[in-house]
């Protein structure tokens, strides 16, 4: 399976390396200079792993009423190890060591050492994104020419991952890894990767029913595969279940996003039902089905929600796959609509990213505040959201070049 990555020495592979490096260069150029203050909070909790705090939820949440970290335990350990590995290169680490003084986070942001710290703290995102580039190439080889270019030049990734500084790219990389392994018919590893993605942030689990329906094997094997995906999450959560903050911050906090979304839940069930019908009553390629319905589920979540800017990276890798000659213009329109839509968060999604360069720049009036003087910005943002919704649907109907491979049924 891996041999093609290392041995292949042809036009295609040089083409791949060239575009991977172009993508990496663009990302490195923005990494040190922009960040949302959230990057402090994302790393503040996991930094305590260096102080040998194994249960951040009871240590911070229960013990000190600090609720900085609201993600599952694996995220804590991965970001904690990342922080530990790059700790020698970070500036002013006393800030993280003594989090009781966390209100001074802006002092940490405006220190000249911030560029170095942002570079090293975001390196893990760069590895994950580069992995997505490689995996997309090897998964969708029939369409490698355009896919890798759109990955490299993606303003969505540049903004939401490398400027905004959110970690959603990590679970997104695990989803793409799972799709890659599905195509290679390594289903056990595929479901394991999907589960690991879900252990970092819950959204990959939304696609679990699609993976289960599309995997070409019997009911008994599907049960085993779902266990492979879910058990690691349960196993890793067990030591934290007696922490009230773990339940509130991780489960109740994230389920809060879904409970009010009746439309999403109804639609989700309908999509799974259609997936079931399509898979079992029509002779459709299972892999093709997996791509389309995984994209459908994740984009439907975005359609039903006022999604945060970083959520776009959940489906961005699949969008690169779905763009072709006929719908390229819609992709550009999608990008424009996205960057209009994120103004819904005012300065929080625009000028505040300039905080590492100069904190006073964050005081500039938001684009909304300027627009509202001569137009109804709410209408503009709402229109942008509708355009995003419709274009997400348009991309769904894009044809993907896939040589049909997965039809046979495994025992």
């Amino acid at each position, binding site marked *: 399976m891996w041999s093609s990555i290392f041995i292949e020495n042809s036009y295609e592979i040089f083409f791949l*390396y060239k575009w991977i490096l172009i993508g990496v260069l663009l990302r*490195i150029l923005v990494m040190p200079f922009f960040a949302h203050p959230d990057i402090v909070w994302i790393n503040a909790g996991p930094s305590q792993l260096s102080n040998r705090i194994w249960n951040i939820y009871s240590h911070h949440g229960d013990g000190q009423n600090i609720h900085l970290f609201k993600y599952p335990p694996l995220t804590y350990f991965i970001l904690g190890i990342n922080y530990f590995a790059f700790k020698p290169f970070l500036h002013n680490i006393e800030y993280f060591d003594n989090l009781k003084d966390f209100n001074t986070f802006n002092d940490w942001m405006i220190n000249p050492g911030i560029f170095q710290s942002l570079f090293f703290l975001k390196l893990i995102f760069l590895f994950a994104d580069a992995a997505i580039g490689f995996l997309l190439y090897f998964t969708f080889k029939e369409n490698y020419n355009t896919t890798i270019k759109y990955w490299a030049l993606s303003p969505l990734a540049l903004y939401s991952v490398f400027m905004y500084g959110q970690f959603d790219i990590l679970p997104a990389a695990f989803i793409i890894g799972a799709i890659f392994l599905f195509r290679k018919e390594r289903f056990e590893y595929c479901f394991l990767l999907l589960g690991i993605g879900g252990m970092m942030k819950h959204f990959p689990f939304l696609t679990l029913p699609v993976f289960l329906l599309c995997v070409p094997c019997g009911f008994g094997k599907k049960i085993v595969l779902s266990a492979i995906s879910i058990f690691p999450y349960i196993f890793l959560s067990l030591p934290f279940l007696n922490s009230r903050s773990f339940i509130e911050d991780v489960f109740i906090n994230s389920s*809060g996003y879904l409970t*009010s979304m009746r439309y999403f839940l109804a639609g989700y069930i309908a999509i799974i039902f259609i997936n079931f019908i399509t898979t079992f009553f029509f002779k459709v390629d299972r892999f093709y089905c997996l791509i389309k319905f995984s994209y459908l589920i994740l984009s439907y979540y975005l359609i039903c929600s*006022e999604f945060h800017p970083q959520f776009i990276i959940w489906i961005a890798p699949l969008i690169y796959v779905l763009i072709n000659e006929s719908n390229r213009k819609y992709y550009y329109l999608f990008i424009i609509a996205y960057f209009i839509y994120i103004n819904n*968060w005012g300065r929080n999604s625009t000028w505040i990213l300039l905080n590492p360069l100069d904190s006073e720049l964050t005081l500039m009036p938001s684009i909304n505040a300027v627009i509202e003087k001569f137009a109804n910005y709410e209408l503009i943002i709402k229109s942008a*959201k509708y355009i995003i919704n*419709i274009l997400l649907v348009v991309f769904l109907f894009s044809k993907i070049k896939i040589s049909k491979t997965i039809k046979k049924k495994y025992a």
Partner: protein
Amino acid sequence: MLDKKIFLLFFFFLLNCIPIKHPIFSEREKEYFVYKNSELIQDVELDLNLNLKGKVHKVKGIIIVLTLKENTNIAYKIEKGGNTLIESLYLAEPAGFSRKYQAVKIMFKKDVFLDSDIKLFLKPDKDLFIWYGGEADVKNRVTVDGVPVEGKIYLDFIKSIQAKDKLREIYSKITENFKFNIFYLIIIILIISGIRFFSKQNGK
């Protein structure tokens, strides 16, 4: 074949192209001073030369820091000796679906505050919240230079911002970390060399 079947979903989607609000969290409400849609008056005193950590800045204006319910609009008026100097409306910006409150800053130019004998009137159209939360809680905490602004209307000062000076400040901040800059440049040069190398190989 599959595309035709999935096409049915298109109409399903169109029916559901409605953004839906998420729940918001209200358990922190008790930690605010709440001014129930009433008028607030604050005396303002101003020193036009602001001394920050030994460096004197010329003041360009004033910022009022408040914590508001989402989409709260505030009418404000500034009086000097009974005469209205300025009267206007602040339209709050959206804070995002998961935030019930937002910290806002209303800015005034210094011309308004040439004398210290002035009164500031604020009248929000919804309840006005001013944060005084516990020390351990950071949600929507408003701080200035790391000091929490608790239970009072805070008047901050806008330093005179000139684009030329600002660019110079950013440049000097970026160039201050010499070792990292050298490392960063080497990385970029290596990547560009790699791109050139693979472009040549690719072209053969």
